[in-house]
C-alpha cells in the first residue's frame, strides 16, 4: 500500500490533542521569543517541531503502527489507540530525534511512495542530535573528563565548534606538542536520557499486541538502541580508528585520523585534524573528470581496505565521513557506528563474492543454502530471484571491464529499490550483516554518483583482494 503526503498528514491521530501538549505550549512560547532580544536561537531550533516534514514523518510512523492492528477487535483497537497516542507524545518529546523525524518527512515529501518498512529502516539509519553546547558548558565537561580546562589541556582551543557530531560537536585545537587536532565532545547525559526514553517508549507500546509487526518494531528499536550505545562510546570508536588506520600506508593517499589517547575518554575523542572539505564544497570547485575519478577510486579503495584488511564494516557511507583534503589525499572519519565482522559473517561475505564470480549457478546454490530456501516453494523462488538481483547490483561491477561509470542514476535508483525490499521480505533478520552491507553500499554509491566518478572496480577489487581464495 502506498500513500501520498496528504494522506499521511491525515493519519496523525488526534492532532488537536497533540497541539495542546506541553510541547506545543513551549513551542508557542519559543515562537514568541523569536522576536525578543534574547539569544535563544539554538533552543528554539531544538524545540520547534511542527513543520510539515516533521508531521509527515511522525504520521508515517503512526500509520505504520496503526495498520498493524487493523484486524483487531474494537476493544483492542481502542486500547491500542490510547497506547499509541501516548507513545507518539513521547516520540514528539524526543528533541534529539526531531531532526531525524524531519529528515524522514522531507524524504517522504520527495518520495511519498516509500513503504512503512523502508521508513523504519530509515529511522534506524538516522543519527541522534544533541543541543549545541556553549563554551562554558563544554569547558566544565572537558575539565571533568580530562582533568583540566581545555585552555590548560591544549595549547589553543577554538571555542566555536567547526562540525556537529552525533550527540555532540567537534572543536579544533592544538596540542602543546604542536599537532592540530579535532576534539569530539559529547553532550552530557544525552546517551542515558535517550536510553531511558526508549525504554519508556517500549513500555508504552508493549501492551499493543502487534504480533508479527510487534517483533519487527521491537527489533528495529533494539537496533537503534544498539547503534546509540556504539555511537556514544568514543573509546570504542577510537579502537576502530586505530584498527582502520593500521590498514593504510602513506602511499595509499588515504588517511584515517590518528587518535590521541591521553586526550580521549569515553565521551571526549581527540583525533588528528584533517584539513579539507566535504563533498558538496569539493564539487563547488568544479573538479576535472580525472580528479573526480581519482577521488572516487580512493573512496572505493578505502571501503575495500577497511572491510577486507581491517575487517570493519561501516554502517553507512555518509558524505560527511569523507574529507577531500587540500593535499590531494582522502580522509575517512567517523568510526562511531562500525562493527567488526564475526567469523561467520566474514565467511558469508567472502562466499558471496567468490560464488558470484564463479557464475550464476554457484551463487544461486550458495544463497539457497545460506537462507534455507526451498526452490520449489513459490514464495522462496521469488526470494531467490530477488537475491540474484541483489547480487547483480552488489557485485555486478566486479565483472565489468574498465572503469565503471557511477553517474548512471538508474543504477543507484535500482539499489535503493532493492534495499527497500530487504526488510519487506523479512529474511534480513537471519543475516543482519546484509542490512549493514546494503546501507553502506547505497551510501558509498550515492557519493560516487554525486561525484560522477568512473572507477575500475574490477581492478581495484583484485588489488584489494576482494576475493580471497
Amino acid at each position, binding site marked *: 500500500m502506498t500513500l501520498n503526503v496528504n494522506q499521511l498528514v491525515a493519519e496523525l491521530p488526534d492532532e488537536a490533542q497533540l497541539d495542546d501538549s506541553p510541547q506545543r505550549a513551549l513551542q508557542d512560547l519559543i515562537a514568541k*521569543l523569536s522576536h525578543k532580544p*534574547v539569544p535563544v536561537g539554538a533552543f528554539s531550533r531544538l524545540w520547534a517541531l511542527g513543520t510539515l516534514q516533521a508531521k509527515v514523518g511522525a504520521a508515517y510512523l503512526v500509520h505504520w503502527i496503526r495498520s498493524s492492528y487493523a484486524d483487531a477487535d474494537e476493544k483492542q483497537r481502542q486500547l491500542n489507540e490510547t497506547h499509541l497516542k501516548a507513545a507518539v507524545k513521547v516520540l514528539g518529546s524526543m528533541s534529539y530525534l526531531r531532526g531525524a523525524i524531519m529528515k524522514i518527512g522531507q524524504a517522504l515529501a520527495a518520495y511519498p511512495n516509500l513503504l512503512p518498512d523502508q521508513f523504519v529502516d530509515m529511522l534506524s539509519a538516522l543519527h541522534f542530535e544533541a543541543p549545541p553546547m*556553549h*563554551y*562554558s558548558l563544554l569547558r566544565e565537561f572537558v575539565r*571533568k573528563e580530562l582533568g583540566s580546562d581545555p585552555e590548560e589541556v591544549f595549547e589553543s582551543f577554538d571555542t566555536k565548534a567547526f562540525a556537529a557530531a552525533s550527540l555532540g560537536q567537534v572543536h579544533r585545537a592544538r596540542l602543546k606538542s604542536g599537532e592540530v587536532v579535532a576534539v569530539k565532545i559529547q553532550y552530557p*547525559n*544525552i546517551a542515558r536520557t535517550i536510553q531511558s526514553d526508549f525504554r519508556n517508549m517500549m513500555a508504552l507500546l508493549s501492551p499493543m499486541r502487534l504480533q508479527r509487526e510487534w517483533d519487527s518494531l521491537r527489533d528495529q528499536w533494539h537496533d537503534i538502541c544498539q547503534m546509540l550505545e556504539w555511537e556514544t562510546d568514543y573509546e570504542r570508536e577510537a579502537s576502530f580508528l586505530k584498527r582502520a588506520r593500521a590498514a593504510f600506508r602513506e602511499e595509499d593517499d588515504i588517511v584515517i585520523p590518528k587518535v590521541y589517547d591521553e586526550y580521549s575518554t569515553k565521551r571526549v575523542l581527540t583525533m588528528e585534524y584533517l584539513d579539507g572539505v566535504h563533498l558538496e564544497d569539493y564539487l563547488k570547485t568544479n573538479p576535472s573528470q580525472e580528479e573526480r575519478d581519482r577521488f572516487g577510486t580512493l573512496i572505493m579503495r578505502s571501503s575495500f581496505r577497511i572491510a577486507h584488511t581491517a575487517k570493519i564494516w561501516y554502517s553507512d557511507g555518509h558524505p560527511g565521513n569523507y574529507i577531500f583534503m587540500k593535499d590531494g589525499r582522502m580522509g575517512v572519519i567517523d568510526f562511531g557506528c562500525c562493527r567488526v565482522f564475526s567469523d561467520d559473517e566474514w565467511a558469508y561475505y567472502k562466499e558471496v563474492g567468490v560464488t558470484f564470480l564463479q557464475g550464476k549457478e554457484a551463487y544461486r546454490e550458495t544463497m539457497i543454502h545460506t537462507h534455507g530456501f526451498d526452490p520449489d516453494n513459490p514464495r522462496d523462488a521469488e526470494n531467490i530471484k530477488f537475491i540474484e538481483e541483489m547480487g547483480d547490483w552488489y557485485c555486478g561491477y566486479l565483472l565489468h571491464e574498465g572503469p565503471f561509470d557511477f553517474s548512471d542514476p538508474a543504477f543507484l535508483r535500482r539499489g535503493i529499490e532493492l534495499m527497500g525490499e530487504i526488510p519487506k521480505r523479512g529474511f534480513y533478520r537471519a543475516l543482519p550483516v546484509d542490512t549493514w552491507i546494503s546501507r553502506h553500499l547505497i551510501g558509498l554509491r550515492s557519493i560516487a554518483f554525486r561525484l560522477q566518478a568512473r572507477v575500475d572496480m574490477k581492478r581495484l577489487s583484485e588489488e584489494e583482494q576482494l576475493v580471497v581464495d
Partner: protein
Amino acid sequence: MIGSMRISAGMKAKTHARIVEVARNLFQDKGFDVTTTRDIAAAAKIATGTLFNYFSSKEALGMAIVAESLRAGHDDYEARRRGLESLDEDLFLLIACCLRCIEPCRNYVAPVIEAAMSPFAQSRLCPEADEFRAQHMERVADCLSRHDFAMDSSFVAMHLYWTLYLGVLGFWSRDESPQQEDTLALLDQSMRLFVASLSDNHARLEVSRDA
C-alpha cells in the same frame, strides 16, 4: 589601650578562623547532621557559649563556610568570563564557577542549604544566608543588565532564578552520575528555561507598554 584592642581583634579573627577550620573538618569527616556545636567548640578549644559569640547556630556556621566558597566562585566567574557569552551561557558560567568552588564542601552542602538557604528557611535565623543571597543576586542583576534586562523587571523571574539555583545546588550535592554530568545537563537546561521565561516577561511588558 589601642595595642590591646589590636590584639583582641587579631585574637578574635584567629578564633573565628579556627572555628571555621575545625567545623569544616568535622562536617567533612562526621557529617553535618551528626556534628554538634559542642563537638566544634571542643575541637576549637573554646567554650560552647563562646562559639555562639561568633555564629548564632550550627546552620549559620555551615552557611558561613559554604558562602565563603560560593563567594570564591563569584571571583572565579569574573576571572573566567570572556564577555562574549550569551545570557544563558553567562548564567551557566556563574553557577558552574560556584559549583567548582564548593566541591570540597560537597559532603555537607545539602543539609546546609536545606537548613539555611531553602525558600522556607526563616531569614532571621541565618543572616549569612541572606547576605550571600543578596550578593549572588547582585551578580545576577549585573549579568542581566549586561544583556539589557533590568533586575527589577520581575520579582517572579528572580524568584524563579533562585529556585533553579538552589535546585541545581541540591541536585549536584547528590548527583551520582558519571563525572556528575547530569548536573551539567540540568544546569544548561535550567538556564535556557530561565532565559526563556525572562524573555516572555519582557515581551509582555513591551506589549502592555504599547497598549
